[in-house]
């Protein structure tokens, strides 16, 4: 990295929107380049001044909303002509794309007209089939999946947005859709686990999700059953449909759905994040005004801890939103048939019988030794009992 490259990246280093490796490279280079440090100080001053200007900037007039509502009139959105360049450009469609679409549309429109003209001008022209002439000319509409069905977040406001607007945004979260993280589990008995796994893979792809975990347990010995556990991540709005499709793959042995409401956590995290970002801006402003090195170091320390807190909270919020956007489904598969037992040949059977006999002999020997040792251990008691029996017998037999 050289000075020119760094200079072009500094504005985004300042706004903390660069990826971590790039940020680290810049930090390394900054410590060695006085010119860049000066440039950074200038950008901080510029950023602080912009923040001041914006804080005191004029707000839209109170009639703004009424004016817009009057212009849109009653009813649903008016479907404006498809070719609106402002909207096309904001949708990311390049100008050449619009031009190419216009050329194609011209060809499509003029082809039937041209054929009609040719037919009218000569008797030997092949007539155009009615169906072809009647085919409507329609602009192709790209099929795009709705990936973020129930993805919820608070409306991010500007620094000076009114408290009323923020509370409306929070209300909107609770009133419209809750931020729910859903988890499902389904147990299935299927005719063939391997083909079921393939179908689940295809289903996941078609639902714009991903297989996030797979544990395939092929039977280790004859008579065992093939089982597998698959974990899927699918867009939340496809959760129900995916679960239904999975249920159709085989016999359902179990099914469960759990839901965790993350609305409050997300709204709370958003508010804390906003406050931290305001705090960061304030600290930057204070740092620009601080004269003493000790003060600057102190503010820098506070700034570092604020940024760390921002990164942590940001990661937490992103993780929660990911859980809301994508539901998790765990599928337990069991094969309905077990692995057939192989029939062994005569040699194998004799060998097995010999091995079984040896195993039995060895077991009997061990048992015998164990019992003998038991007798040895109890020998003193046996000896006392035997002596007592002998003495009693001799006394009574002697008298008789």
């Amino acid at each position, binding site marked *: 990295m050289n000075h020119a490259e760094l200079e072009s990246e500094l504005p985004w280093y300042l706004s903390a929107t660069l990826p971590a490796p790039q940020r680290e490279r810049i930090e390394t280079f900054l410590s060695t380049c006085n010119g860049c440090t000066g440039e950074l100080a200038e950008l901080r001053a510029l950023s602080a001044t912009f923040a001041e200007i914006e804080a005191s900037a004029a707000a839209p007039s109170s009639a703004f909303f009424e004016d817009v509502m009057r212009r849109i009139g009653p009813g649903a959105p008016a479907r404006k002509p498809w070719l609106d360049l402002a909207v096309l450009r904001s949708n990311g469609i390049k100008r050449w794309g619009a031009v190419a679409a216009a050329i194609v549309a011209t060809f499509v429109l003029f082809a039937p007209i041209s054929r009609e003209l040719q037919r009218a001008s000569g008797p030997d022209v092949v007539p155009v089939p009615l169906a072809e002439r009647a085919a409507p000319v329609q602009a192709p509409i790209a099929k795009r999946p709705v990936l973020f069905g129930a993805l919820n*977040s608070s409306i991010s406001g500007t620094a000076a947005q009114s408290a009323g607007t923020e509370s409306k945004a929070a209300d909107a979260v609770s009133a419209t859709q809750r931020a729910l993280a859903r988890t499902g589990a389904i147990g299935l008995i299927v005719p063939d686990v391997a083909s079921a796994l393939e179908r689940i893979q295809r289903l996941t792809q078609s639902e714009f999700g991903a297989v996030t975990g797979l544990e395939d347990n092929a039977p280790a010995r004859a008579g065992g059953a093939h089982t597998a556990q698959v974990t899927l991540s699918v867009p939340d709005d496809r959760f129900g449909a995916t679960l239904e499709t999975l249920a159709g793959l085989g016999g359902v042995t179990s099914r469960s759905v759990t839901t965790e409401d993350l609305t409050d956590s997300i709204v709370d995290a958003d508010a804390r994040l906003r406050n931290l970002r305001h705090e960061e801006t304030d600290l930057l402003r204070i740092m620009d005004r601080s004269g003493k090195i000790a003060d600057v170091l102190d503010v820098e320390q506070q700034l570092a801890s604020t940024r760390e807190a921002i990164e942590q909270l940001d990661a937490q919020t992103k993780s929660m939103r990911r859980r809301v956007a994508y539901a998790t489904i765990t599928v337990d598969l069991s094969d309905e048939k077990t692995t057939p037992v192989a029939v062994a040949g005569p040699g194998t059977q004799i060998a097995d019988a010999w091995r079984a006999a040896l195993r039995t002999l060895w077991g009997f020997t061990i048992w015998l030794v164990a019992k003998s040792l038991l007798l040895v251990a109890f020998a003193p008691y046996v000896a006392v009992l035997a002596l007592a029996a002998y003495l009693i017998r001799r006394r009574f037999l002697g008298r008789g």
Partner: protein
Amino acid sequence: MQPVDDESGLERSLLRRIAAGDRAAFESFFRAYERRVYRYVARMVSDDGLANEAASDVMVEVWNSAPRYAGRSKPSTWVLGIAHHKALDCLRRARRDAALLHLAEPPRTESEDPERRAIESSTRAEIEAALETISPEHRAVLHLTFVLGYAQAEIAAIVGCPLGTVKTRVYHAKRALRNALVTAGLQREVS
């Protein structure tokens, strides 16, 4: 797996409801964006009357175009993209001087230290005045970078140009601002 854009889920659902003609959803969306949109177009057109007109055009366009929102970009990027082009359209309609829409002159090769000092030592009023003298495109990228804090890719989507052009444009915008401040300083010294 498609990347999850998790900053803007509610705005997306609001846009879907707006597409179905839900006026309450439109009001929520409007309240969330009115100031951001107004300040952005006001910064570009530098005229209160034109800013009101352009901001109003943007919001009407949001209502009308919500059914066509393709979801390729974040709602905020989409709205500010409309705002950017509406502001330019508004400037063209107002038949402003064509030079107003041109980008600033190429960077000068002389030492930049006096220019750098120009920004650091300038007051807020001076910077505000200098902003008025640079092109709307330059004002737009400075606003998106330093006020709204957007990443390079988002700015590229909003203004409709490649990523490299964003960096170059911000670089030239800074130089143009410095030049304007230096020129204003010299004029003050002469008078």
